[in-house]
């Protein structure tokens, strides 16, 4: 009876995970974190926990210590997942060189925030981003970000995060992913008065990629950036609804007159996606998984020894 339910639950969980990961019935595939935090998956896992617990408690062949280890490990995994579901905090922000990020003050794209999650107080500033490109310059081989982390009680710490190695600070995991360029535009009136100036993060990597931005007018500014070109590194196209009002290569700081304004690009910085994760539940689950391995391992080794003998 136990094995029947065990097979049923394990195939249900793995089948459900696979179906959602492929996206067979949904619009598009779901991310792993969304599947793990979904109600059917958590319900299935809780059912598995209850089943295994009953089996272990009622099985006299399993030694007392191992029995309790299993139970503790399973409880840790399940409670870890529940803690993660209710209090997990995953955010993603785009951060440009020289830009700071302060949680609670800035708007950020929240990937996941548990029902009872309280956003942690974070102050971090990207000082320098150093990419290492592949031979054809189309991919990032390595990305190194130098950050200033502002401590809660005052003071700051310099930390380095790479795309290969996440960094643990104050119980939070910091990761960087993705790369692009943030040009700084200056919009002036025909009379030369500065109306607006700002960095705008754009998906301009690799070379030839195009992205656009809009301000308050009906214009759309399409831009491509070619860092390898020394003379005219930008390709700019300004479109007012379906009317192209400018379309040409331009230099850095070149003033482009159009309709009732003048636009120029004064400097280019780099941006990356900073992922901040605070998930105590994940740590609890990992401890549970390690405990299960530790209790299983001696048994496996013993079996192997018996075979050799």
């Amino acid at each position, binding site marked *: 009876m136990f*094995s*029947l*339910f065990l*097979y*049923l*639950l*394990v*195939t*249900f*969980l793995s*089948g*459900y995970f696979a*179906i*959602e990961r*492929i*996206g*067979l*019935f*949904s*619009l*598009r595939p779901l991310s792993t974190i969304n599947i793990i935090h*979904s109600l*059917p998956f958590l319900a299935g896992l809780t059912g598995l926990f209850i089943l295994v617990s009953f089996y272990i408690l009622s099985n006299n062949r399993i030694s007392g210590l191992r029995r309790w280890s299993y139970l503790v490990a399973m409880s840790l995994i399940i409670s870890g997942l529940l803690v993660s579901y209710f209090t997990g905090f995953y955010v993603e922000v785009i951060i440009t060189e020289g830009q700071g990020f302060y949680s609670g003050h800035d708007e950020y794209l929240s990937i996941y925030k548990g029902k009872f999650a309280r956003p942690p107080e974070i102050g971090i500033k990207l000082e320098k981003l150093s990419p290492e490109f592949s031979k054809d310059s189309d991919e990032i081989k390595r990305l190194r970000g130098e950050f200033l982390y502002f401590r809660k009680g005052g003071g700051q710490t310099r930390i380095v995060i790479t795309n290969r190695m996440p960094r643990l600070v104050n119980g939070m995991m910091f990761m960087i992913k993705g790369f692009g360029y943030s040009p700084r535009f200056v919009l002036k009136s025909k009379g030369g008065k500065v109306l607006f100036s700002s960095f705008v993060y754009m*998906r301009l990597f690799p070379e*030839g*990629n*195009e*992205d*656009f931005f809009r301000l308050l*007018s*009906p214009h*759309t500014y*399409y831009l*491509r950036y070619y860092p390898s070109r020394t003379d005219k590194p930008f390709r700019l*196209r300004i*479109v*007012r*609804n*379906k*009317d*192209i009002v400018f*379309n040409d290569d331009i230099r850095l700081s070149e003033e482009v007159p159009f309709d009732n304004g003048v636009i120029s690009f004064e400097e280019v910085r780099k941006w990356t996606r900073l992922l901040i994760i605070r998930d105590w539940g994940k740590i609890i689950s990992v401890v549970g998984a390690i405990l299960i391995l530790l209790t299983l391992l001696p048994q496996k080794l013993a079996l192997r020894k018996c075979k050799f003998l």
Partner: protein
Amino acid sequence: MKNIYASIVGIILACLTSFFIHENSLYNFRFHLGLYDGEAEERAIEDTLRLFNRHFATFFNTGGSLQGLNEFPAANLIKRRIFQEINNWRKNNSLLVYDRDVFKIEFIKLMDPVSAIALAKEVWFLNVQDIDTRRYISPVKAAPVKVRYFLKKIEKKWQVVEYEVFGEGDEVPPVNKGGF
């Protein structure tokens, strides 16, 4: 043998759970397996784009008449940009006239059950006119463009949520991830 049956039941349960928790799961399932009427969707998208361009030109040519605004298959931000420009022209007592000459769809690609991309070659004749007398203020300018439309299916109707305009000789870059 019993364990195999239990495994089959587990997988069926997983399928049923996934089926019932998603909206339009049958349609999504058919789409992913290619068991849908792609030609009908493409026809619907083409009709949407023709309607979009007809209304687009009419709004400009009438100086912002709101007639047809409810049928205009476009996201609110697109509507806002169109009427913002029309109002700018109106402030100068003028209007920009869009006269369509060519509209040819190069391709339509369904990205998922509710998202599609279409590329069209279009030629418009543009000129600025006095709003009262319809006197030509600017010469007629031919504007050959390539337009990449991003469409979403909302309540079973396709709608333009974004469009990118390229020059006739411009290379159309790959779709950037922020398109939709």
